[in-house]
C-alpha cells in the first residue's frame, strides 16, 4: 500500500547552512511516527519542507505517492498564450485609444442624427489595421503577458496551500492561531478547503451559504468537543490558556479532514497530566483515520504514543525504529546525552556554532 508520506533523500540548505542532510523515511497509513532529536537537528525545517514552505534543495516529498505541485499541462500553456494575446490586444487598444475614439466616436457623433454604429465599428477596425503603432504594442504586450502569466504560474506551483488541500494539516511550534477570532472561527478557517460556499452565495445569503455554514459550524463544534474545548467556542482564541491554545490548533488542523496530521511540539509546556491527555487525544485522532507525524521533546509522550520513531541529529537521520529499539540505541543516547552523559542541549551551545534552531 502506498505510504501516506514518503520523504526521499531530502536535503535543505540555506546558503551555507545545511538544515536537513539526505533524510529518508516513510509513514504508513494509520501509523503514529515521532521525529525526535536535539535542538537544531532540523525537525521543524523538515516539517516546513513537507508542507511546502521551503522547497527541498535535493530530494522529493511524496504525499500519497505523488509530489504536490501543479503540473504543466497543455491547457496551462494555452492559458498563458491567451493571457498574452489578451494583454497584447489591450495594450494595442490602449496605445491607440485616443485616435480610435476620435475616429470612431467623436467624428461620427452629431446629434440629433442617429449614431452610425456600423460605421463606427468599421472605423475602429480600420484604425486597428497593422501598423507600427498597433503591431508593436500588441507584440510587446503579448510577450509581457505570456512572461507574466508564466511567472505567476511558476510562483504558485508549489506551496503550503497546495499541500494542505492535498490532505495535510499541521500545527506550529510557536502557536499561530488567529488570536482575535473566536475558537469556532479558527476551526472554521481550517475548514476552508472543505466548505463550498462562494462569494456570491455569501453576498446574497443564498441557500448554499446557509447550509454550508450550518454544516460547517456543526462539524467545528464536534472538533472542539474532540479536543475538549466545546464550551469555549465563542471565546477569542487569544484569551485561552497556553495548553488550550495548543489543543485549539489541533482542532483547527483537523478541520481539514486530513489524511496526515503534522504536530510540531504539541506537548510543549504541558504538565504530565496534560501530556497523558494529549497522548489519548493523538490516539483518538489516529483511530478516526488520520495518520500522525509529530515532533516532540517530551520523551514520556513520545515513548507512550509512537509506533515508530525517527531520530535526527545535525540534519541527518541517525536512527529509526520502534520506541524500544530507539531507547536502547547507543547512537541516540550519545546524541542526546553526549559521550560524557551531559545533555546534548548544553553540548550544542558550546560545541556547535551556527546550528539553526529547530
Amino acid at each position: 500500500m502506498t505510504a501516506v508520506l514518503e520523504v526521499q533523500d531530502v536535503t535543505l540548505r540555506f546558503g551555507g547552512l545545511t538544515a536537513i542532510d539526505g533524510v529518508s523515511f516513510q509513514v504508513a497509513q494509520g501509523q503514529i511516527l515521532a521525529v525526535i532529536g536535539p535542538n537544531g537537528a532540523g525537525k521543524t525545517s523538515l516539517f516546513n519542507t513537507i508542507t511546502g514552505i521551503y522547497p527541498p534543495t535535493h530530494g522529493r516529498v511524496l504525499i500519497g505517492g505523488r509530489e504536490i505541485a501543479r503540473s504543466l499541462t497543455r491547457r496551462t500553456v494555452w492559458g498563458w498564450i491567451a493571457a498574452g494575446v489578451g494583454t497584447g490586444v489591450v495594450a494595442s487598444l490602449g496605445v491607440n485609444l485616443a485616435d480610435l475614439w476620435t475616429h470612431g466616436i467623436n467624428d461620427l457623433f452629431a446629434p440629433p442624427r442617429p449614431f452610425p454604429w456600423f460605421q463606427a465599428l468599421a472605423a475602429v477596425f480600420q484604425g486597428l489595421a497593422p501598423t507600427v503603432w498597433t503591431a508593436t504594442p500588441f507584440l510587446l504586450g503579448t510577450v509581457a503577458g505570456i512572461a507574466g502569466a508564466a511567472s505567476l504560474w511558476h510562483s504558485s506551483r508549489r506551496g503550503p496551500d497546495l499541500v494542505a488541500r492535498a490532505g495535510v494539516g499541521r500545527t506550529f511550534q510557536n502557536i499561530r492561531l488567529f488570536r482575535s477570532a473566536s475558537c469556532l472561527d479558527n476551526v472554521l478557517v481550517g475548514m476552508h478547503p472543505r466548505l463550498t460556499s462562494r462569494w456570491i452565495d455569501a453576498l446574497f445569503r443564498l441557500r448554499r451559504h446557509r447550509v454550508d455554514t450550518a454544516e460547517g459550524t456543526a462539524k467545528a463544534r464536534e472538533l472542539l468537543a474532540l479536543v475538549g474545548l466545546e464550551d469555549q467556542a465563542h471565546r477569542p482564541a487569544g484569551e485561552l490558556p497556553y495548553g488550550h491554545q495548543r489543543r485549539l490548533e489541533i482542532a483547527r488542523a483537523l478541520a481539514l479532514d486530513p489524511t496526515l496530521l503534522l504536530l510540531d511540539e504539541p506537548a510543549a509546556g504541558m504538565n504530565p497530566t496534560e501530556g497523558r491527555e494529549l497522548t489519548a487525544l493523538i490516539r483518538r485522532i489516529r483511530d478516526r483515520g488520520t495518520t500522525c507525524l509529530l515532533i516532540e521533546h517530551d520523551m514520556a509522550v513520545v515513548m507512550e504514543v509512537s509506533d515508530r520513531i525517527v531520530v535526527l541529529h545535525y540534519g541527518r537521520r541517525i536512527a529509526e525504529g520502534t520506541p524500544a529499539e530507539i531507547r536502547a540505541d547507543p547512537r541516540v543516547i550519545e546524541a542526546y546525552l553526549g559521550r560524557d552523559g551531559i545533555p546534548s542541549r548544553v553540548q550544542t551551545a558550546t560545541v556547535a556554532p551556527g546550528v539553526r534552531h529547530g
Partner: protein
Amino acid sequence: MERLRPWLVPAAALLFAVILPVIDRTLPSALSIAGLMPGLMVFAIVALGLNLVTGFTGLLHLGVAAFMAIGAYTYAIATSPVYPFQIGPWPGVFLAIVVTAASGLALGLPAVRLRGDYLAIVTLGFGEFVQDTLRNLDPVTKGTMGINPVPPLISGHGLSTYYLYLGLLVLAILASRNLRDSRLGRAWRAIRADELAARSMGIGVARLKLAAMAAGAALCGLGGAAWSALQGSSVEPGSYDFQLSIGVLCAVIVGGLGSLPGVVVGVLLMFGLNQIVLVKLSNAFGLTGANAAVWAQPTNWKYLVFGLALVLMMRFRPEGLWPEEKSP
C-alpha cells in the same frame, strides 16, 4: 463601546439618518447639512470598499481614489449625452461597478504577490497612473474639464436623492457585512492576521487577495458612479488625487480598521469636518480676500487640524473610534 444588543445602535443610527432631513428643514440655512449628506454617503461607500481591501484582508491600498475615478468616468462616458452610448443611469452604475472591479483585478494580478509595503507603493503609483491617464486621454475623457453633463440617478436634488443615497449606503454596509461573516470573509481576515498560517490551512492566498481587490474596487466603483451622478459631471481628474486616497484611508483607520460602524463614523468625522464644519466656519467668520493673513482663515488650517487629529489619534487611540469587535 459597551456591548448593547448588537442591533440597537445601528438601528438607532438608521432611524436618525432617516429623520435627519426633516429635522434639518427646521434649522437655519447656515446650519443645514442635509444637502451635503449624499456626498458624505458616497465617501462612506468608497471607504467601505477600501475597508474590504485594507480592513478585512490587510492589504494596504494607497490609491482608492483611482478606483473611484474609474467608476465615475465609466458612468459618465456611458450615460452622458456627450457620447452616443447613453445607456441610462442604472445600467451605467452596473457597468461602472463591473469595469472598476476588472481594473481591480488588473492591478492585483502583478501586485498581489508583493510584500505589504511594496504592494502599497504599487497602489500609490497606480493612483497616479490613472489620474494622469484620465488627464491625458483628451478625446475620451475631455481632459481637465471632465465630462459634462452627466445624468443623476434620480431627478430632483432634495429628499429623493438623500434617501436614495442612504439606501445605497445601507446596501453597501449589508454587502460588506455579508461578505465578512462568510467563508470568504473568514479567509480574508485570516490572511490579515497571519498569512503563512492561512496558507498552511489550504487558503489560496494570492487568489483571495485578488478577490479582495476586485470586491473593494467594485464598491469604490459604485461610489464613483454615484458621485459622478451627484455632481452632474465626471469631475476633473485632479480631484481624484493622492490626498483623496489618503483621506479615505485615514477615515477608515480613525474610525476603526475593519469595523463597519467605525468606517461610517470615520468618514462622517473626517470628511464632515473638512467639507462641512470648516467651510461653515469660514463662511461664518466671513474672512476671505487677499488681505486677510493666511493664518486667519479657518480653511487654511484644515491640513494642520487633520494632521494633528491623525497624530493624536494614533498616539492615544490607535484602534479607532469604534474598533472591530472581537468576534462573538
